[in-house]
């Protein structure tokens, strides 16, 4: 008699959960939203496939037909929707929301609903094939595909887990899209993260404080020593090194004005490097979608006569080479730096902050003082307290093990409950 197929665990993909793939694959077959993640996992010899592989030609045709019918509902209700959007803005605001909505919204909805239906139809197909889906892990579920997957599982009583991709910078009570998870369980990185989610109305019993799996590499990974990092980045001997952690204006941010703020911040950091005769590393945000050539950092350094470099990659090297990090906003990089023994400060910004005293804060006019304080604080115990608030796995660096054990135990609990009910 052939072995029964193993249960399936749905995973969004992405670097946040990557370290969990292998341990979870000891228990489940992995089905990924992101095709590239499925390929990467399969390449490691793990039992993995993309969810979309469940879609055949018939299902594909069904998806197209269903999406057209759904879009027709939007088009047929254009007048009602126009009133809802316009009324909400008290019939002021941009014309595209106030009077001209029918000209674009049905097409917009068709495009997005098609993407959602594709995922949902694939999950339906897996269910029809009598494969047991036992859980679902997402690093966020605000975007369309992850939210669709979580909603589908929630409706069926399948445990859903949010393993946050952005553990830093969210204060309790702050209204921010990062708090908008529909997942049943939340794996908070540390006490500060847990408090943020609970303050947003999530049941404390469903929030576990476990650590940040994607940061385990900073404890056990192949991180270069400072000398190697400086050699690879061609830092001249004897120069102090400032690493500027750049940011980007997210399209869901609660306000405007980021570009001007970031320009002022960068100019202040550049002036500090110039005054101190420091080597300056401009580290681009990894998910900043703008091309490298569009950033002024290296050109500005050359104009100001400041030695330095700009890179989107080599994160471990940029941190290890630095004497101090200066982040444009609260950043995970400050936590990663603290784990690696590099102090930091940052430029304050409206709506985002840490819940802790450290790192040191500054504005463009005072960032020099913050840099001095950070440099003087290297190896201070207070940095450990900062890390512990955001990574409960500090200093062991075993968050992946803790999160894996927790997910497996919750899925087992759910399966036992199903057996008891049936």
């Amino acid at each position, binding site marked *: 008699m052939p072995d029964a197929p193993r249960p399936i665990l749905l995973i969004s993909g992405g670097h946040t959960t990557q370290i969990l793939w292998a341990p979870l694959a000891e228990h489940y077959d992995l089905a990924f939203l992101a095709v590239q993640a499925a390929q990467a996992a399969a390449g490691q010899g793990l039992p993995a496939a993309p969810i979309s592989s469940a879609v055949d030609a018939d299902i594909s045709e069904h998806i197209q037909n*269903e999406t057209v019918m*759904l879009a027709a*509902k*939007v088009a047929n*209700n254009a007048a*009602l*929707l126009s009133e*809802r*959007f316009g009324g*909400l*803005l008290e019939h002021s*605001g*941009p014309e*595209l*929301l106030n009077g001209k909505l029918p000209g674009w919204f049905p097409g*917009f*909805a068709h495009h*997005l*609903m098609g993407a*959602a*239906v594709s995922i*949902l*139809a694939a*999950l*339906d197909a897996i269910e029809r094939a009598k494969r047991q889906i036992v859980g679902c892990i997402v690093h966020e579920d*605000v*975007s*369309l595909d992850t*939210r*669709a997957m979580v*909603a*589908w599982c929630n*409706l069926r009583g399948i445990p859903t887990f949010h393993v946050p991709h952005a553990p830093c910078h969210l204060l309790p009570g702050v*209204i921010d*899209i990062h708090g*908008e998870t*529909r997942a049943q369980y939340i794996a908070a990185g540390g006490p500060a993260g847990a408090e943020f989610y609970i303050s947003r109305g999530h049941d404390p019993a469903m929030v576990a404080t476990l650590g940040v799996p994607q940061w385990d590499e900073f404890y056990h990974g192949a991180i270069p020593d400072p000398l190697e990092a400086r050699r690879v980045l061609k830092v001249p001997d004897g120069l102090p090194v400032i690493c500027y952690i750049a940011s980007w204006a997210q*399209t*869901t*941010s*609660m*306000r*405007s*004005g980021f570009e001007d703020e970031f320009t002022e911040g960068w100019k202040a950091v550049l002036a500090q490097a110039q005054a101190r005769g420091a080597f300056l590393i401009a580290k681009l945000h990894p998910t900043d979608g703008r091309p490298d050539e569009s950033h002024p950092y290296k050109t500005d350094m050359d104009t100001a006569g400041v030695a330095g470099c700009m890179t989107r990659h080599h994160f471990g090297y940029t941190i290890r080479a630095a004497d101090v990090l200066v982040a444009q906003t609260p950043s995970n990089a400050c936590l990663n730096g603290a784990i690696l023994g590099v102090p930091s400060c940052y430029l304050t910004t409206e709506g985002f902050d840490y819940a802790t005293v450290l790192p040191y804060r500054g504005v463009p006019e005072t960032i020099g003082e913050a840099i001095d304080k950070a440099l003087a604080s290297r190896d201070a115990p207070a940095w450990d307290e900062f890390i512990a608030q955001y990574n409960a796995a500090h200093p062991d660096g075993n968050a992946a093990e803790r999160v894996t054990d927790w997910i497996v135990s919750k899925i087992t609990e759910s399966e036992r409950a199903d057996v008891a009910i049936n």
Partner: protein
Amino acid sequence: MTDKAVAEVITWRLSHSWYDGLGLEYSGVALGDCMEYNLLTVLNRLMLQYQAQAVLKDADVKAEAPQGELTNA
């Protein structure tokens, strides 16, 4: 209307209500909820463009005003 007021309107009211009663569901899932992030992105851009245009218009009016009125203002 301030940035924050704009954000509160578009984020926490509009996104959760625009699809009510339209039957936009598949396999039991509310598709309007799934679209939240994409919709917010578009709405944010539209509202911020609108604000920027309003600021420019206001600046034009002030630039054309007689000096005395500006001082009094």
